[in-house]
Structures are given as structure tokens and as C-alpha cells.
């Protein structure tokens, strides 16, 4: 499996990371090095083997469905790069 520049651009888009046009060839090459390394996994016979979901044989614990927290608007917004009138502010989303 070889990754070309357009695939690299698509992956960058999916990851929401801006990659300049002139950086794409090097990025595609790095992907190919890493994926070439990962290809070794194809040598393993995984027929009938379950994909691991949890490394410890424990079901996820469930908690009681009740309100235990809240009314911390100031704290929630304290680290926001742009907070106004008690909300997170972002560029216009809907035209």
C-alpha cells in the first residue's frame, strides 16, 4: 500500500491539520515508511482471534445515573481562548 500526495492531503484534511502543499511529498514519504513497518502485521495468522477491546477482563463499571456536578460555568470557561457572555465563542458556523 503506497500513499501518494493526494491521499496524504486527504488524511490531513480528515485530521483537521493544515499541511502546506509543499510539505505533502515529505509527509507522504513518512507515512509510507511507517505503514511499511506496520505491514509486517500481515504475516500473523489472526484467523478466529478476537480483537482486544479491554486488556483487563473487566466489564466497564456503571455508575448511578444521577446529577453529581454542575453550576461551574466560570470554571468551564476559564481556559477558553474566546469566551463571551457565558459562552464559548467561535467563528460563524451557519451561513
Amino acid at each position: 500500500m503506497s500513499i501518494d500526495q493526494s491521499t496524504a492531503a486527504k488524511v490531513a484534511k480528515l485530521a483537521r491539520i493544515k499541511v502546506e502543499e509543499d510539505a505533502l511529498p515529505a509527509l507522504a514519504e513518512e507515512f509510507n515508511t511507517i505503514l511499511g513497518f506496520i505491514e509486517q502485521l500481515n504475516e500473523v495468522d489472526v484467523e478466529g482471534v478476537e480483537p482486544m477491546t479491554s486488556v483487563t477482563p473487566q466489564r466497564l463499571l456503571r455508575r448511578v445515573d444521577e446529577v453529581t456536578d454542575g453550576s461551574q460555568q466560570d470554571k468551564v470557561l476559564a481556559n477558553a481562548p474566546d469566551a463571551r457572555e457565558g459562552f464559548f465563542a467561535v467563528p460563524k458556523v451557519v451561513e
Partner: protein
Amino acid sequence: MSELNKLGLAEARDLLRKGETTSVELTEACLKAIDAADALNSFVHKTPDIALERARAADARLAAGDAPAMCGLPIGIKDLFCTKGVDSQAASNILKGFKPEYESTVSGKLQEAGAVMLGKLNMDEFAMGSSNETSAYGDAISPWRRGGEETPLTPGGSSGGSAAAVAADLCLAATGTDTGGSIRQPAAFTGTVGIKPTYGRCSRWGIVAFASSLDQAGPMTKSVRDAAIMLEAMCGHDAKDSTSVDLAVPNFEAMLTGDIKGKKIGIPREYRMDGMPEEIARLWDDGAEMLKAAGAEIVEISLPHTKYALPAYYVIAPAEASSNLARYDGVRFGHRATLAQGDGITEMYEKTRAEGFGHEVQRRVMVGTYVLSAGFYDAYYNRARRVRTLIKKDFEDVFAAGVDAILTPATPSAAFGLGEMSDADPVKMYLNDVFTVTVNLAGLPGISVPTGLDAQGLPLGLQLIGRPWDEGDLLNTAYALEQSAGFVAKPARWW
């Protein structure tokens, strides 16, 4: 008393209880050592006011006879742990200025146990790296040097600042985290002890997430006894982490008898890699001899899927990272890029993440995005998870056959020079984790113990891998190895 910062946790604790020193004295000695060690770039956010306030409170508790396990002991905290009101940015520019409104469970437990936080420690960005060279703060530098050279060396990574600080006696101990070897590799590079407990032992709540199915916190210390003391204070069930396990935490220190007679120690043949340096092979053989001399039985074992651990890790860890790091969007916390006229929300995400994430983090997020994308999910991600099941089974089979612990090298080499790997392809750097990453994939406890020096005078470590939830027994075997190896070397001060 001179140079209190050179003490370990156990010695300092005993002096405190006897009234022969105070937490304020210990803390001041460490703060002085930290200020004189800026050349190591290990402490990246110093918190002297918090430290002295907690030290005074600890002294009051000691005087009142109400001293918990870590009371008054000054430690450093890896920057990956959220600490209330104190910069916690995972060594990333995307979290620059982030001051959490909450305390991570583990750092909170240490605080409750009376430990004194001296500041935050350097690391690889988002814990992604093996040399501390991906940090937004710049490289952490090892206090160790090759004999007769001044080449700056890596303290390892990702917990490089923690390792450098403990090795240079800037603190009595430090917290680390380990996703693929990030506690054990830097411990081995700096002649310190580092243990990654069983997955689920320590709560992950409030620790900036990298790969959630692999991440575990653990202590980095000057001795196995100190690791036992500090690990106990860090462990325990936490309802805020659904993968945290509700099991009693034993008194690990009380289990350090040094008696390993009749224990069966496995030597996995697949770890004897082609091209293994002679020094590492000899260190490993010597370690096995030491355990044998202490009464253990040495058996050769096979972990057949070892070779596939690293490639499986480099699917699973980036996949989880791409998902975890989606939260850095420039909206709720951290950095937001300056936008151009007409930029919408997509440009905000893309520019913010391009500016905020360093190169290695971007690369891993994108690899993760690729292996999870439509059409490749089965071929890469699900296949890697199947291989992970087989890797775990390798260990289960060996433990079922009566093996108590497994002895391996901790790293394929001694510490390398900063920048020496910069021209190498990323896979070459990933090979640093070849002996440690299997343990994360299988969720097992692993400990790195310093046992020797290489020809250039740099420390080398061995790794012991234990049964799940049996950290007490593992620590005891490590204690026996430590006693036999008698490693006492310290870096000569140049900083």
C-alpha cells in the same frame, strides 16, 4: 545536614519521623538544587510557593503525629498531570497557558499522602517520543555524560524531565507515565528505578490522554524501596476512571523481603535480537546469574509474537491518539490560531492544530486518522487489535506454566546524544521501545532497575515483567536484583 536533596524517599521519611530534619529543610534543599540546574531543562514550571506552603503543612502534621505515607517528601510532577491552578500543558504549544481547575487523581492522592510538589517536569509532547526532543519546552538534558565527553545526552522519553530530575537529585522522586516504555526507558537511561503498574492500578483521570488503553502512571525513584512506597500512594480505585480496578492496594514496601528462593524467572528467547550490542547481552546474562545466585530458577521461555508488538503498537497508539487529540480544537482551552478575514470554523481547526501540535504529534495523529479511516479500519486497526490479543496470550501461557517474572533488557542501547537520531527515519526512534512496548499491550506491570554501566560510563537497566496485579512480588524480585547488582553510580556534576 548537608545535601538533603540527595536522599531517597525512605531515608528522608525516616529522618522526618525521627525529627532529625523538616520538610521545609528538605524542600528548600531541592528548590536550591532546581534553581542551580536550569541547564538540564527538567523543571519547566517551578512552584516554590506551593512547595513551601505544603512543606509547612507537612511539618505541622508530622509534629502532631498525623503523618501519612509521603508526608513532607518533595517530588516533581510530570507536565502530563493536570495540577489545579498550575500550568499543565503536556509539553505542547496547543495547551500553552492551560491552568486546570482540577487536580488529577494521582497527583491529588500524592498530595493527600503529604507529598510536596516542587514543580512540573519536562517530557515529550503529549508523551509521544523516546528522547524528550519533541517537547515544546526544548530538550531535557541528561545529567549523565559519556566519559571524557561533553556531548549532551538524552535522558530518554517521554518522562525525560522526570528521569533527569531524579538522577540529578533535584527532587526525591517524580511521577511518570508510560504508554510504550516512557517510564522504564528513561529510568534505564539515567540509572534510576521506574515502574509501570498493571493497567487499571492507577487512575488515568486528569492525566492528559495519549492512548487510553495503554497509558498508566507510575513512580520514578532512586531505589526499589522508594518505588514501592510511592506506587502505593498513587494506586487505588477511582470512580472517575471506568478502567480503574477496584482491588485492594497491598503494602508494597512490606513485601520487600529480598527472598526470591524458588521463584521461576523466564528469559524470553525472542528478545535476543539480531545485532544486540554485546554490552546489553552481557548485562542481561549477568542479571540472570544474579537472580539465580539469589535462589531463583532461570528458565528459557518463548513469547512468539514479540516481533509484532512494535508494529501493532504503532497502529493502536496513533489510532487512540488521533481520537483523544480531537479535543484540541481551539474552542474550549489552549491555543487558537489568529484567523484571516473570511476564515470559518474549519480553517480555525486546521490552523490551530497545525500551529499548536509539533511535528511528531501531527504525524501520529494523521497515521491514526489513516488507520481508522473507511476502508482501512479492518486491515490496520482491527488486525492490530487481534495481534494484541495474541501478544497478551503469549504472556498468559508463560505465567500459566508457572513463571513468576520475566527478565529482559530495558533498552537496546545506552542513552544516545541529543540530535543523533534526528536524521533517522521515525521507525528507528520507535525501536527504543522494542523491549517495553509488549508490556503495555498486555497490560502487565514492568519495572526497570539499573544494574550496570557501559564502557563509556553510562547506566544500563534491566526490565522485570510481572503477573497482572502482582506488583508486590515484582517489586520484591526487583529488590533482590537491586541488592545483587549494587548499582551506586551517580552522574558527576557539570551543570
